[in-house]
């Protein structure tokens, strides 16, 4: 029960009809989208249908960026025979946002089979996006056959180890982590000792008031370990971030939006731009979920994130491609 309570929100500040019990369910409901503002560790949520009622000031922060995930370029099965088309639709969505995002994060599974032409296609499509900078972390599909060598050559310039790195934008500290390498039989995602040591050192000198954004492919919280949806040593990583007032963790991998708040940390997973996956335990396996063609774009999407300085607010908005 106490574990469950941690997942729940304290108040329905904005009277959007999403009560504390219904909130998680709503967030997990792929395709509906939600707008979230975190203030002092409390998350307020708005359903996308009422987004016009939110003031522009709340939506336009001093820093805005967009997260895309799981493009799976090269996938060509019935769940989505045109993943290039839906990635282009994601780019159109990004280009249509009111505030042009400063950059993009891609949380992995750029390619389906780590083929050079798959990465090339994604690079070409993303060139059409207004934000020019893209920060990548690998998914397990990006490091097949070569232990991530190609990924590092393409996207890992200046990174450490298997491709982890950090950077600062307008007072927010971003950390790109790699949890898809050296996976152990029977286990989940892994950060590994070397990366954890780097993390501890990387945040040591930051002020506690510095907002932290961590992004990695596999969720850094236990979404559904039975399907491998979690990271074995994420608790250690999060322990290094305990002192910070605002921590946002952005992941992909599970091809659906989900959110959880635990103390100072907001966890968020993004939709895929390629194909949806079933809700945890709602199918025999986490394989691609087939939906009628006309519904496909409603279960794919992008995530837009705004940070409003001085308000300790980070707003996470999921939009479907429909």
């Amino acid at each position, binding site marked *: 029960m106490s574990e469950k309570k941690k997942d729940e929100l304290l108040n329905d500040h904005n009277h959007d009809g999403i009560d504390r019990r219904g909130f998680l369910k709503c967030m997990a409901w792929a395709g509906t989208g939600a707008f979230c503002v975190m203030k002092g560790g409390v998350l307020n949520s708005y359903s996308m249908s009422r987004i016009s009622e939110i003031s522009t000031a709340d939506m336009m922060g001093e820093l805005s960026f967009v997260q895309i995930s799981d493009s799976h370029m090269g996938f*060509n*099965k019935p*769940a989505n025979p045109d993943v290039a088309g839906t990635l282009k639709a994601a780019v159109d969505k990004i280009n249509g946002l009111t505030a042009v995002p400063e950059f993009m994060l891609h949380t992995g599974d750029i390619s*389906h*089979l*780590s083929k050079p032409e798959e990465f090339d296609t994604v690079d070409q499509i993303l060139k059409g996006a207004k934000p020019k900078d893209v920060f990548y972390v690998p998914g*397990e*599909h990006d490091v*097949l*056959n070569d232990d991530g060598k190609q990924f590092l050559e393409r996207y890992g310039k200046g990174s450490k180890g298997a491709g982890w790195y950090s950077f600062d934008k307008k007072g927010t500290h971003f950390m790109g982590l790699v949890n898809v390498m050296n*996976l*152990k*039989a*029977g*286990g*989940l995602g892994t950060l590994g000792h070397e990366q954890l040591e780097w993390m501890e050192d990387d945040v040591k000198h930051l002020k506690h008031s510095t907002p932290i954004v961590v992004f990695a492919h596999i969720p850094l919280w236990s979404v559904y*370990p*039975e*399907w*491998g949806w979690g990271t074995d040593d994420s608790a250690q990583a999060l322990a290094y971030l305990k002192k910070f007032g605002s921590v946002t963790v952005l992941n992909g991998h599970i091809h659906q939006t989900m959110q959880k708040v635990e103390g100072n940390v907001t966890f968020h997973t993004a939709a895929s731009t390629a194909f949806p996956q079933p809700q945890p335990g709602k199918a*025999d*396996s*986490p*394989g*691609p979920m087939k939906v009628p063609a006309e519904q496909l774009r409603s279960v794919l999407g992008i995530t837009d994130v705004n940070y409003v300085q001085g308000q300790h607010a980070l707003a996470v908005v999921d939009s479907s491609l429909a």
Partner: protein
Amino acid sequence: MRRSVFITGLAAALVLGMGVFGTGRKGSVTSAQEKTSTMEVKIDNFSFGPVTLTVPVGTTVTWTNRDDIPHTVVSTDDPKTFKSKVLDTDEKFSFTLSKAGTYPYFCSIHPKMTGKVIVQ
């Protein structure tokens, strides 16, 4: 692209089949001791079937990926006895186990997927 890979897989299976039939025709060339048999492991719904396979020494085990998502077949020992490249849908990986022992293995992309081959 995928079609050509699939055809290669089929061709390999045919060659394998011919090899097995061939032992009959070329009995004088292949001694009984070198005779091999083939056992199949199917990958369905993110699991290996059968999870545990018991085979005699010298058996060639062939794994077939029947999922929409790629998988691998990698033994957990060090150094690794066998390690497949990534297997897309309908692709196969074969390995001949010539020494007795227990060989646990997993999918290095989805490590929750585990299985083992007991060679005796």
